[in-house]
């Protein structure tokens, strides 16, 4: 049976039409849900630090160059995330990265984190579940997404679901067990199951990442369990432990190098300083000072750190630089006052020291302290520095007035009470001295022996005076 040309043409048209229909339908579906590659949103960079703006600008340009690159979208999102900028734009970036690179658990994880920052925990759960699902397909994926999912579920009051996720982490026996145990403790607290809560939290006490938090929670759990002695013990432990390190996040650690904020570097300096790692902190500051020769801040911070390493000369040098760059900054003058005071006192302790040199240092210290107080009259530490300098300069009355003002402004600091107590003792006011020295002892950390030593000296004087009788009173 032969087919006519007309029929052949008809079939061809029909075939063509069907093909076109499929293409158009596909296009429609594509437009609806397909991997569209929108332009990256505009990112306002006005007033942003130049180095940071540069990182973001380059990352955005890479997306514009290749809008179908999941890597480029992810990099832009990470650059913003590492610098705590624009959670909404971060979310868009990671959503696109996930669409273009659908097997990587990082992108839904970060998208979920961005949604949490935006205050949308319910939507975050969807993304975090996806991240967990993708992690489960990998051979060695960190449990971090599951832990964040569990914590988010807990924050939404879904205690059972949260518990399931925390237990799954425990089943996997990873290094993140402590975070899961802490989470299970919080689940138990949410259920008012205090014994269970206590049992989970007590497993966290060995972890520097969370031991302080665990102690604070345990204190209230023990109070509820009417175990007051343990409540006292945990309250004290919480006060004694250093600040928790916080949870490690391997996914976040991958993009830490993108952090460009100067304040993050200064924060690192603060942390190193708090940890007693002065040399490392000073090195970061010297680096910043080299990069930004017009910035007074690294110099003033060096003026704070170097004396703790015994480097008073170098500290003075940096403070002079800071003063030249920013003559009206309170901290510059305050630290200068302290450095000169310490130098003067160190000189006095040296055998055969030139008293004129020491006097010049104390005068410089007093001058700097007065400059501070002209800018900030309620600065207790500056009053203290002034009082100490004036004492060395022989102005006993003015010194006492300044030290009293230090206590008045900042009664919370042991040193203010201590120096006033010493000055009063030296002025012969033994009852007054005792009152302040006892207060100093109460406020000082246990390892600070100075108040006890000064009280001992005072005790000897009091005994002596008692022997001599009332006529010896000055």
């Amino acid at each position, binding site marked *: 049976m032969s087919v006519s040309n007309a029929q052949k043409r008809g079939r061809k*048209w029909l075939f063509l*039409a069907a093909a*076109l*229909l499929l*293409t*158009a*339908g596909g*296009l*429609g*579906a594509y*437009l*609806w*849900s397909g991997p569209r590659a929108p332009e990256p949103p505009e990112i*306002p960079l006005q*007033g*942003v*630090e130049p180095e940071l703006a540069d990182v973001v600008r380059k990352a955005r340009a890479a997306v514009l160059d290749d809008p179908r690159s999941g890597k480029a979208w992810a990099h832009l999102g990470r650059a913003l995330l590492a610098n*705590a*900028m*624009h959670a*909404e734009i971060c979310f868009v970036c990671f959503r696109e990265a996930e669409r273009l690179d659908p097997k990587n658990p990082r992108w839904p994880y970060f998208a979920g984190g961005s949604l949490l*920052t935006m*205050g949308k*925990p319910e939507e975050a759960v969807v993304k975090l579940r996806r991240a967990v699902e993708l992690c489960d397909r990998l051979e060695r994926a960190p449990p971090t997404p599951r832990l964040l999912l569990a914590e988010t579920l*807990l924050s*939404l*009051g879904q205690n059972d679901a949260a518990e399931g996720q925390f237990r799954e982490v425990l089943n996997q026996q990873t290094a993140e067990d402590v975070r899961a145990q802490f989470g299970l403790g*919080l689940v138990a*607290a*949410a259920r*008012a199951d205090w014994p269970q809560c206590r049992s989970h939290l007590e497993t966290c006490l060995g972890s520097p990442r*969370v031991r302080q*938090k665990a102690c*604070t*929670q345990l204190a*209230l759990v023990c*109070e*509820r369990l009417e175990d007051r002695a343990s*409540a006292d013990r945990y*309250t004290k432990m919480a006060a004694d432990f250093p600040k928790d390190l916080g949870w490690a996040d391997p996914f976040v650690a991958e993009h830490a190098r993108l952090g460009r*904020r*100067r*304040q993050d570097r200064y924060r690192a300096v603060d942390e190193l300083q708090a940890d007693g790692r002065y040399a490392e902190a000073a090195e970061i500051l010297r680096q910043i000072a080299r990069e930004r020769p017009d910035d007074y*801040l690294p110099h003033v911070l060096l003026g704070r750190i170097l004396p703790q390493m015994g480097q008073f000369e170098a500290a003075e040098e940096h403070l002079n630089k800071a003063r030249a760059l920013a003559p*009206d*900054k*309170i*901290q510059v003058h305050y630290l200068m006052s302290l450095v000169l005071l310490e130098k003067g006192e160190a000189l006095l302790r040296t055998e055969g020291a030139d008293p004129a040199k020491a006097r010049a240092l104390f005068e410089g210290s007093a001058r700097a302290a007065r400059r501070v107080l002209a*800018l*900030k*009259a*309620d*600065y*207790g530490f500056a009053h203290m520095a002034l009082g100490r300098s004036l004492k060395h300069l022989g102005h006993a009355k003015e010194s006492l007035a300044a030290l009293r003002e230090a206590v*008045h*402004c*900042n*009664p*919370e600091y042991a040193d203010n009470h201590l120096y006033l107590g010493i000055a009063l003792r030296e002025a012969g006011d033994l009852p007054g001295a005792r009152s302040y020295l006892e207060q100093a002892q109460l*406020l000082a950390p246990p390892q600070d022996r100075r108040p006890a030593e000064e009280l001992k000296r005072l005790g000897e004087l009091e005994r002596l005076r008692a022997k001599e009788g009332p006529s010896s009173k000055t």
Partner: protein
Amino acid sequence: MVLLLGVLLAAAAVGTLFWALRPQEREESAPTEPPWFVDVTDQVGLDFVHDAGPTGDYFMPQQVGSGAAFFDFDNDGLLDIYLLQNGGPKSASTNRLFRQTKDGKFEDVSRGSGLDINGHNMGVAVGDFNNDGWPDVLVTRYNGVKLFLNQGNGTFRDVTEEAGLNCPAWGASAAFFDYDRDGWLDIVIACYVDYDPTWPCPGIFKDRDYCAPKNFKGRVSRLFRNLGRQGAAAKAGVRFEDVTVKSGLGRLPGPGLGVLCADIDGDGWPDILIANDGEPSRLWINQRDGTFKEEAVRRGLAYDASGNAQAGMGIAFGDVNGDGLADVFVTHLAEETHTLWLQGPRGLFVDRTRQSGVLKSPWRGTGFGTMFGDFDNDGHLDLAIANGAVSARAKPPDNSLGPFWSWYGQRNQVFAGDGSGRFRDVSLSNPALCGKINVGRGLACGDFDRDGGLDLLVTSIAGRARLYRNVASARGHWLSVRTFDPARNRDALGAVVKVSAGGRNWVRWLHSAESYLCSSEPRAHFGLGAAAAVDRIEVTWPDGAREVFPGGAADRRVEVRKGAGAAVKP
């Protein structure tokens, strides 16, 4: 060809349909119920605009804002208003005192009142510290405090120095309370940080922004003991002694913003709760010997349920679940969550924010002033929050606050309580209070029109102070109780009032200072729902004595006087 075109058109239509049906961003739903509040600021003549001083220097005290007081300074039975300015010592803007007239309007009586001072004024506390029957005023400032004695003739006298009140620290919220139960009102001041105005703080979205408190050391809260009259003469002045160190408060500094004084542990002696900005709250438990012991951690109020310290600003205090115990709500940053701690058993608290519904909101804000109050008198406490950011947002929500402050603008919130500790956000139904952005700070509560509905006063940085009249429709019955101590000649701050009506009990704690930087009307307001009559009123006075007073009809303002009721044996 025609067929082809037809197919293409059909396909395009299908594609367009898909496109049109793609998921849309969620939009705010329309108001679903009548509003509780209308803005009557213009109507009543309250023409106060807050002066925050010049912008651009990012002077941190600007960001703390200024508060307000609802109080009856002339004892005419009508609530008056005192509003603070923050323009600085060189500013022409001075604090303003508005007297309410009989027609419900407010007239400016600032000039010559003695309260019309300029400066960086932050918080205000009201209390009759010399027991002469006239409410006095304490103003906290960036660089100290001012104490004003009400002279009973419409004027106030600055007695800061003669009363020995010397506090150089940056004060925020403050309260009058009688911590040693000697009948003289003492003063506690939440002090903020040891601020260095020359310290640079970069912003996230700007090269500079306001510093966060973590850049500076926190201060200790200051406690001043009222020593009473210094002399036999009736007009002799009172003196205060700084007992910050002696009392124990001087041991733990923190960036304090909010303060609340109430008997937390149930021993009849007032305790002190301080909300710290970014550090754990402090709960100072009165040891009944002039000293306090810090117990926030073990009593559950220091941290949230996850063990995190948040940026505590304002404090609301009230029984939100009807168990007779006061619960605590503290406002925090938008990036955090506000926290509701329920009390139970007595003196112990647990964070129940997740279950409370306060996180389910169409928007979030950085909360400052906050109050519980039964705004619709249905017998359940509701909640209001004044919001405003502390650092510039990524972009301003709109430009209604000008080129600078719009970056910090946020919308207030109001929640309806259901009496079980759960709340429902009704902000969308209250466009007057919550519809526009403001840099909200202070929030005070009082029934200025004496109609039984709690009205709100909101202060904002560089904006109008706004008065919101309660117009809630179908409000329930109510009772407003003033507790008066004739021996002291003043309101019994610290009294606890329990009202029984319709088979239910309600408890309120009398203190004028909660919220943030503000002082509210010192009355106990009870929404009674359907109960048209009150069975009894029981008062536990600040000295621990308990008395019962007869009830009567609802919908009244009553005054109960110490000694006039039937004593209740302990």
